């Protein structure tokens, strides 16, 4: 059997030589070493869905629109664009000096090819919905139409790209920075098939190209000489390390083996603030941490008062200041602050002190028919994690002290937890949601009544549905914003979920790393970073 023999031979060879390949990058000027949480599931722009993958893809590729160091939108592969008056037709003009890493010019056809591949049902791209604002995109993925030419994207010539949307979409340009909207070099993707992302095969139009990829060890990038702004790129090497364990990541950082960490170990925050505060970066993130009720079953079905009671009885200030301690913002609404064109919705009791909140909670609890002799007995489901455990313990204690609720805690590993969530095998489940783009819709569309399993609580409100779905096709931005805000108000009043806090991101950054700008998307393209003398 030739395959087996080959396998054994290559194994023997690898055994002998593996030693040499793996030496990690040493600390030096111009060398940036980043902790990146996990080994990528794939670097194929259409097959990945995680943040760690997106970080690497952002360095290897560039979309029509790119992100600056502060995540604001700047011209990317397209140097300029026009939007039609009705907001549905975008015309992009490609750069003349746009080049792939093998010297080939970047053309509008590369984007057409990539978008079609991304929306092809055979590709089975998990994040295809990012491109749904484009005309016929959703129908294509669903298989309702099969003719790729009907997709609302076409190349008028090599340097002009026209995209037609289904309806005006305010956040469309922001969505174009997502890796689903990157171009692809057709010849190499077709030549190498599923191996097109390997070093030597991968052709990208970003500021960097791939030099080495040793699974579970590192991914090494070097500058792309053909990049249109290559002279602005100051790094010589970028190393990405899969640092699964945050405690160990911090230790490697302290031993000067990493320049930037992906995260920090939550239980060492106090120590970090006391000893390494200058290197600690903490900034709000577009995400919300919350508990969802199962409103399809008792005791939470048709029981708004009880749900509100449990929400009020949580002392979010104590939780974020003493338990999680990473600068999280207590959340009394679902859509995080900082979304452009959106007024954060907050119910009136957000300003009350906890004593008053507890009193209100106790009244609602009693109204719902519970008391010391008849306490509510519920279970919180969460996925295994020290952080989730500490929060659940604290919340259970708060519910006990304020109301007398008896709570049991149940943890499951990730996949089992997802399965339980899908089957609604929970009473209260811990969840978190990070926005896919900087708009309220990515948060609110979760809870329309036909959203399927994404709608954890099983919330069904026609008023809410009408507002959210209506907003999706509304052309006037001000009206649209108002509709979404009204929808969120209804949602918060019905309390199918308990928003707990808005996320923050935490990183440790060595003093010799320059160009890092905190932003709500936590996006830091390596092309704007530099490593100085040290």
């Amino acid at each position: 059997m030739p395959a087996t023999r080959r396998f054994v031979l290559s194994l023997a060879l690898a055994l002998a030589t593996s030693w040499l390949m793996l030496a990690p990058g040493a600390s030096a000027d111009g060398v940036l070493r980043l902790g990146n949480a996990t080994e990528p599931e794939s670097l194929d722009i259409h097959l990945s869905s995680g943040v760690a993958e997106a970080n690497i893809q952002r360095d290897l590729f560039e979309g029509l629109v790119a992100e600056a160091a502060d995540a604001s939108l700047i011209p990317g592969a397209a140097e300029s664009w026009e939007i039609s008056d009705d907001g549905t037709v975008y015309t992009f003009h490609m750069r003349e000096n746009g080049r792939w890493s093998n010297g080939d010019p970047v053309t509008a056809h590369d984007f057409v090819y990539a978008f079609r591949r991304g929306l092809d049902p055979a590709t089975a791209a998990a994040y295809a919905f990012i491109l749904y604002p484009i005309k016929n995109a959703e129908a294509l993925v669903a298989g309702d139409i099969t003719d790729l030419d009907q997709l609302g994207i076409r190349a008028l010539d090599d340097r002009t790209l026209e995209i037609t949307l289904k309806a005006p979409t305010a956040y469309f340009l922001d969505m174009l920075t997502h890796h689903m909207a990157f171009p692809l070099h057709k010849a190499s993707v077709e030549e190498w098939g599923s191996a097109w992302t390997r070093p030597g095969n991968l052709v990208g139009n970003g500021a960097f190209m791939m030099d080495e990829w040793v699974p579970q060890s590192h991914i090494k990038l070097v500058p792309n000489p053909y990049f249109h702004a290559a002279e602005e790129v100051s790094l010589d090497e970028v190393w990405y390390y899969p640092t699964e364990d945050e405690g160990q990541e911090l230790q490697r950082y302290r031993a000067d083996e990493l320049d930037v960490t992906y995260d920090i170990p939550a239980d060492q925050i106090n120590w970090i603030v006391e000893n390494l505060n200058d290197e600690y970066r903490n900034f709000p993130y577009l995400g919300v941490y919350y508990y969802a009720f199962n409103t399809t079953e008792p005791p939470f079905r048709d029981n708004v008062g009880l749900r509100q009671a449990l929400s009020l009885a949580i002392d979010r200030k104590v939780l974020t200041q003493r338990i999680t301690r990473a600068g999280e913002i207590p959340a009394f609404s679902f859509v995080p602050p900082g979304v452009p064109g959106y007024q954060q919705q907050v119910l009136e009791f957000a300003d009350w002190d906890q004593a008053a909140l507890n009193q209100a909670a106790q009244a609602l609890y009693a109204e719902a028919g519970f008391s010391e002799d008849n306490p509510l007995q519920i279970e919180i489901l969460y996925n295994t994690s020290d952080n989730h455990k500490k929060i659940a313990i604290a919340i259970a204690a708060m519910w006990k002290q304020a109301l007398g609720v008896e709570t049991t805690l149940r943890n499951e590993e990730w996949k089992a937890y997802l399965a339980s969530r899908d089957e609604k095998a929970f009473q209260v489940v811990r969840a978190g949601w990070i926005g896919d783009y900087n708009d309220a819709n990515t948060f609110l569309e979760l809870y329309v009544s036909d959203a399927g399993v994404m709608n954890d609580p099983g919330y069904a409100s026609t008023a809410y549905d009408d507002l959210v779905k209506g907003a999706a096709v509304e052309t006037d931005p001000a009206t649209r914003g108002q509709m979404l805000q009204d929808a969120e108000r209804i949602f918060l009043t019905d309390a199918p979920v308990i928003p707990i806090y808005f996320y923050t991101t935490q990183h440790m950054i060595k003093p010799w790393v320059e160009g890092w700008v905190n932003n709500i998307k936590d996006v830091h393209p390596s092309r704007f970073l530099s490593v100085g003398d040290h």
Partner: protein
Amino acid sequence: MFGYAVRRLAGAVPTIFVVITISFFMIRLAPGGPFDQERKVPPEVEANLAAAYHLDEPLIEQYGRYLANILQGDFGPSFRYRDFQVSELLRDGFPVSMQLGLAAMILAVTLGFLAGSLAALKRNTPGDVAVMGLAMTGIAVPNFVVAPLMTLILGVWLSLLPVGGWGGLNHAVLPVIALALPQIAAIARLTRGSMLEVLRADFIRTARAKGLSEGAMVTGHALKAAALPVLSYLGPATAGIITGSVVIEQIFGIPGIGRYFVQGALNRDYTLVMGVVIFYAGLIITLNLIVDLLYPLFDPRVRND
């Protein structure tokens, strides 16, 4: 002996087949699938994914397809690391794990045996207590405490050794020691125990009565006999090093295959888990065979029949 070895290897085939079959169905019965994520995909996309990986076929068909593939050496693509084939991941990771494991095993057997023999010869003296006390820390303190502690003191505070990564002798020092410690302790205890028994045994008394010097007697007779329980322990020791490597590789960021055991299960990466299971089954069976073949060398009365 050759016939015995051949028969054992032949017997290994049905064993591995049973392992493959049970594992295959066990893995797929667990809740959740490899492509389950928080952000749900549209049903059409889900259907396409399932079709591409044959997950929509009846289990028996998937099983048959899998068997046919591995007989041709194709372990399939990893479900979680979709840009790589399982055989590539194993081929890249196994040499690393093997270097780490072998070094730890050699260290454990050498130091453990030495420590245990020394302690037995100096029984009930302070030397005995000191040696065994030190050895015991390997068992009393778990590896997920020892490893970060060592990296903290030697890597972060004193900057003597690197904290993470793999690719040079100084990267190997801490992980090998951390991996070997529990086994050093176990082997030391087993050696001491069996050495004590042997030293009291009849044939040793005979040798002493015949006037053989202490040194010659020890090396000649005692060591060999005392080594027998240690030999039996080599199987569990290897298993211990394999499971220990799961933690150690994660803590030190070493690109071996240890983590695929746990990560593979948590990710429901069916093909990768099967690949690792088959690999390790082969390893364990081979190792047990070697140990069984070595028995007669240490105790001539044991015959493999």
